[in-house]
């Protein structure tokens, strides 16, 4: 990590996004539908603790990112019926500043902003915990549901690896995957999701694929889990279409030979792309489960090769 500023800004923006788009609308809707009351929420509330500020700046930023991850996953666990609030013109403030979803972005030095964000995250976690507790108290959610969802959520990012490993060992599955997308995924007992069609871009000897969504951050996230922070960032989105070779080299330490042609797939919502990387040489004796461990989230976007960890600037 050398660009601390980008990491801190990404946490700041993601926290705002998940709070205003995923969490607060869910709380309001749950109250409006009479599943819990505002009083229930306040009764379950425990004030936030002061977050520890340990280690150097990099460690504190990493801690911030981990905590944000817990927050995002925790929101996912509270869903009774999933919905996303559209980013409407009204709440973007196009008509009137007053309607804009607002956040007090912390000011000051990087250290001060990290500390302020850590505090804000703890406060948001306290609200989330109160909401979860109120749902349980009112019988809208059980501890068993939570445990089940937690397990499912953890299995999320590995779905992609399971799909890739099966495609490596079973050429007929690979053909079905490329031809039918989500249909084929059902064979692996993976819930296929329903966000558009799944496009599978297969790497070959001469072609390396990489995925981006220049318009927003489209991705088959219902199937493959959330994207890394840089996927939503202009530093990635604007550069990768213009200069994929240089972007992969400079942002991800992935230096592809001149003989490899790079294909950039720009997702426009209807088709959500994943990369099917090539099976690394020397893995002939490995089992399907062992192969799956070589495949990371970054491999499925095309910024890393299996077995070779990506290095993000």
């Amino acid at each position: 990590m050398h660009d601390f500023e980008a990491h801190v800004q990404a946490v700041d923006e993601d926290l705002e996004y998940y709070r205003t788009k995923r969490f607060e609308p869910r709380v309001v809707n749950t109250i409006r539908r009479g599943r819990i009351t505002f009083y229930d929420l306040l009764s379950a509330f425990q004030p936030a603790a002061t977050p520890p500020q340990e280690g150097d700046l990099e460690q504190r930023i990493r801690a911030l990112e981990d905590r944000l991850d817990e927050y995002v996953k925790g929101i996912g666990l509270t869903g009774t019926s999933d919905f996303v609030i559209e980013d409407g013109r009204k709440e973007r403030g196009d008509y009137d500043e007053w309607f804009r979803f607002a956040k007090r972005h912390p000011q000051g030095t990087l250290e001060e902003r990290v500390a302020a964000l850590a505090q804000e995250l703890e406060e948001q976690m306290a609200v989330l915990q109160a909401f979860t507790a109120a749902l349980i108290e009112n019988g809208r959610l059980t501890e068993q549901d939570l445990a089940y969802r937690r397990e499912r959520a953890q299995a999320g990012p590995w779905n992609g690896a399971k799909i890739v490993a099966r495609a490596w060992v079973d050429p007929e599955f690979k053909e079905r995957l490329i031809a039918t997308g989500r249909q084929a995924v059902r064979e692996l007992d993976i819930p296929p999701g329903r966000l558009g069609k799944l496009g599978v871009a297969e790497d070959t000897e001469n072609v390396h694929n990489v995925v981006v969504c220049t318009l927003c951050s489209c991705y088959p996230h219902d199937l493959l889990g959330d994207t890394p922070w840089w996927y939503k960032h202009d530093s990635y989105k604007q550069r990768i279409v213009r200069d994929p070779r240089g972007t992969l080299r400079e942002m991800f330490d992935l230096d592809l030979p001149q003989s490899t042609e790079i294909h950039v797939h720009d997702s426009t919502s209807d088709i959500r792309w994943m990369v099917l990387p090539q099976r690394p040489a020397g893995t002939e004796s490995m089992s399907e489960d062992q192969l799956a461990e070589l495949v990371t989230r970054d491999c499925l976007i095309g910024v890393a090769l299996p077995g070779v960890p990506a290095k993000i600037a």
Partner: protein
Amino acid sequence: MPDHRFRVGDRVRVLEANPSGNPRTPVHLRGKTGTIVELCGTMENPLDHRDVYPPLCKVEFAIREVFGTDSPDKLFADIHEEWLSYADGEPREA
């Protein structure tokens, strides 16, 4: 499945503007010329869309032509037919 207007291999130009069309056509591709490499049919995307959009085509662009750089690599985007026109004029029926 409704019929596609275009065929694989057709050279197409993305319109500069299409106010009534799907807004999800990347700005940097508008006015650019590419080649149809796949016909995707009509997508149903009930979470994202208001209505059914026209058939979707996968179009290949040379990054060199889109951005005027010397990149040897390619860009692919899925674009609705309402955003596309023939780059070399309407083809004559054979």
